Each structure stands twice: as C-alpha cells, then as structure tokens.
C-alpha cells in the first residue's frame, strides 16, 4: 500500500468535524436569511453570545442568568449523581439478590414488573406532594429512571454467569457468599456497566424534566424559564449544555468500565 498523501492525511484529521461544521453553517445561513423571524430560530452566533454571557458574564445580555452557568450545571449534576448513585447501588444489590435466589425472585419480581412500565414522569405529581419543590422530587425521579435499567441488567448478568465457573468455585471450597462476591459479581459486571450507561441517559432526561416542573434551579429550569421570556438563544444554549453534560457523564462511566473490565481486552471486539 502507498503512503497516504498529504491531502489524505489532512482529510483524516478533519473527517469528524465536517458534518457538524456544515450543519452549523447551514443553520447560521438559514437564520440570517429571514425566512423565519430571527427571534424564533436564533443563529448559532447569537446562541454563542448568550451562552458566553451565561457562563462568563461577558456582557450581561442574559440578565439574571449572567455568570450563573456553573451553578445551574452543578445543581443539575448533583441531582443526577444523587439519584444515579442511589439507583446504581440499590439496582445492583437487588438485582444480585433476584438473579441469585429463586425465593427472592418470586417475592419481589411481580411488584417490580408492574412498577416498571409506569413512566417515571407520571410520578411527578406524587413526587411533588411527597417531597415538595426542591432537590428531592428530582432525585426521586432520577432514581426511578435509572433504577430499572441497572436492576434488569444486573439480573441478566447474574443469570448468564457460566455455571462451570460456579462449579470451579465450589470445587475450590467457596462458601455461597464468597461465590457470589468473587464469581457472580465480577461475571455480571460487564452487564451491570451496560445498565449503568443506559441509566445515566435516563438520569439526565429526568433531571431536566423534573427541573422544568418541580424545581427552581438547574439547567432544565433555566431552559423552561428562558422559554417564558422568549429567549430561545438561552433555550438552545441549555439544550446543548445538557447534551454535553450527558455526553461527559457517559464518557466517564465508559472510562471507568474500560479500566475495571480491562480483562476483556482481546476477548471482545470493541468499536473504538
């Protein structure tokens, strides 16, 4: 094979950026063309100006939000983390118990199977009357949304644990508790992590939803509040912020998983 030409190498460097840049350019051109009133679809440049002020308090164009981005983000992030961690711990624990023990499965599964199809957002009214307007209803909602993906993947992971590994464990003199901890749990980890990755997605979705309705802070609240003031540039800046935060948290989980599951290297084809 020939060595790649200079042009080919230059192309390879910008390959990923081509479609996003084109999209943004088209959007900018479309917004400026005057087909729609500029207030309804702010141009990317305008969004950037609003966003810059929201983050760095550059010119005060976002008024009360000016320079508040980090606080709004932190508020949303802490809710996501609280609900997600709670769901992760409980989902993994309960999932292990259900997957491992038939009696536990028979006792708990029917209830869970009925609760599971109820969309987490439909809990909002009850969440508000139980917890009021603050962090807790949002955390509760995030928990509901993250819990079931983690639970189901854990159950699946435990049940698909190779029986021969358990035989090997019994042969080496393991008690049921040790088999659970040293064989079943590590065997289920890949599955648990894929559940966690689905869960972090729902967690962001539900934080934003909860903040629109039941909380007076956070990125979701800013989004909905800006809508009332017809500041669509801030609405779009919030949307992109949420997208980036969701991407970042998924990326962190992916990195942690890659570290803990490094034994899978070589045995599993992983798309880069």
């Amino acid at each position, binding site marked *: 094979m020939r060595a790649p030409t200079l042009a080919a190498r230059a192309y390879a460097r910008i390959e990923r950026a081509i479609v996003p840049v084109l999209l943004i350019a088209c959007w900018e051109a479309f917004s400026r063309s005057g087909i729609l009133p500029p207030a309804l679809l702010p141009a990317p440049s305008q969004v950037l100006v609003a966003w810059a002020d929201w983050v760095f308090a550059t010119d005060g164009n976002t008024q009360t939000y000016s320079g508040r981005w980090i606080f709004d983000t932190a508020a949303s992030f802490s809710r996501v983390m609280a609900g997600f961690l709670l769901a992760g711990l409980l989902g993994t624990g309960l999932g292990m118990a259900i997957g491992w023990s038939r009696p536990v499965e028979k006792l708990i599964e029917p209830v869970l199977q009925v609760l599971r199809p109820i969309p987490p957002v439909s809990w909002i009214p009850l969440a508000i009357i139980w917890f009021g307007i603050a962090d807790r209803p949002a955390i509760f909602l995030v928990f509901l949304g993250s819990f079931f993906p983690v639970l189901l993947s854990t159950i699946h992971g435990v049940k698909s644990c190779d029986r021969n*590994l358990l*035989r*090997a464990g*019994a*042969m*080496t003199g393991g008690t049921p508790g040790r088999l659970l901890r040293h064989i079943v749990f590590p*065997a289920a980890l890949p599955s648990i992590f894929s559940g966690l990755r689905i869960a972090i997605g729902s967690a962001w979705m539900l934080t934003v939803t909860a903040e629109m309705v039941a909380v007076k802070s956070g990125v979701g609240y800013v989004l909905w509040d800006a809508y009332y003031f017809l500041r669509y540039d801030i609405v779009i800046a919030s949307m992109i912020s949420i997208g980036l935060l969701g991407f970042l948290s998924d990326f962190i989980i992916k990195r942690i998983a890659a570290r803990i599951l490094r034994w899978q290297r070589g045995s599993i084809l992983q798309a880069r």
Partner: protein
Amino acid sequence: MTLIAIDRVSRVFDDPARKTEVTALDDVSLSVGRNEFLCLLGPSGCGKSTLLNMIAGFDHPSRGTVSVGGQAVGAPGADRGVVFQQPTLMPWLPVWENVAFHLLMTGAGKAIRRERAQRFIDMVGLRGFENHYPSELSGGMNQRVGIARALLMNPEVILMDEPFGALDEQTRMDMHAELVRIWRESQSTIVFVTHGIDESLALGTHVAVMSARPGRIRELIPIELERPRDPTSAAFNDYKRHILSLLRPEPASCGADGERRHGH
C-alpha cells in the same frame, strides 16, 4: 490402600420429555489406591464423566456409594481438585489469582496468595505469565493454570475430565510428560477421564476400560510399562491390542439397545 471407593454405583437419568430413563452407569464398583494414576477409558456415553462428577460431588449416585478417604462424598470440596474439560478460569483474574483461587475462597490475604501461587506457577512452567489474563494465553497454557489451581489445594485426589481434548497432538504430548512429572513430584492421586487409548496408556498406572449403554467397567488393567513410555514399543502395543478387543462391541448386548457400532 484404598483412597477412593466406588461401591455398586448406578446412575439413572430421567428423561421427562420422552418419559424414559437412561442408565448412565450400571452397578459399577472400583477402588483407587493412594498415589495411583487411574485412567477411565471408554467411548462417549459410557458414563466416565458421570463417574468423575460423582467423585467430585457435582452429581450423586442413584444407588450405591462413593467415598473418598473413608468419607462419603457429599458436596464438592477442596479435598478433590478438578481440572475441567475447558480450563474454566475466572477471565477477570490474572494467572496468579486464578492459581490461588482456593486461597481467595478461604479468605487468605493477598501477600500469602501471591507467594503460595508462585510455586505452582513454576511447577506448571508458567513463570513470566503471572499477570496475564486467560484471554491472553493459549488453550494449553490455560489448561496448565487449571492444573496449578487444583494442585495448590493439595487435594487428596485430582480429577481430570479430558483436560487435553482440545489441544493439538504436539501440545498434548508435552502436557502428558509434564503431568506425569507433576504427579510424581506432588505424590498425588489422579483419576483421568479420556477416550484416547494411547493417552490412557501414556499416563496411567491403571486403566479402567468402560463400555457404554449401560456404562459398566469391562476390565481394570494395571499397566506395567516403564516410564517414559514408548508408544511404539511391543509391550505398549500388546496393551493397546487388548484394550481394542475390549472396546469392540459385545455381540450379545449389542442388539439390546438396537444400535450397532462398527469397529472401524
């Protein structure tokens, strides 16, 4: 001195879908002495793995008793090390942790596990691969890890279920030599399941030839060949000829299960 006593053991499997019963083992008696290397030899379906699983405690007789060291076998335990057909290692643990798995199961600390593992890693010739994961090793190397894991428990008996079946001929022969050396060094007792006549004659102090449907022991043959054994020698081939004659279908029982096996 008898270490393993198998006394009139039968094992019947129910087949609820067909409402029939399959007799895997029929009235089998066998005793294995300390330091013996017994090969259970027979065609597939003769119940040799079932017999091994009953010694291990993974399966239980329908009739009769299995005892090891005078104790009736109940659950699996660390006094009977098993080397499985597949290596059956924990894929998330490096070699040394797999070798020391028994110590993890008994709650020993990391330093002790690491130290104890080394002797057995050296014994199976895997020095330098302590921190590799099973997915990074070849099938033969993984099988060695499995053997080291069983040896570390210092078991009364090591049970091996066609452990070299998946290996190529060259590697298998190397593993045979290795296993004989380990067996002598560790002074252990081994029960080894195989369907290879050459393999059983290369390894065993005794070969129990089994027949299928229902599984019975045709003959228990003490093998008096010098080691290292030469598979081209006349004495080796005398044994082989004898075993082959035993493995040919018995005309009387052949019609009973309606299946004819040809000795080609």
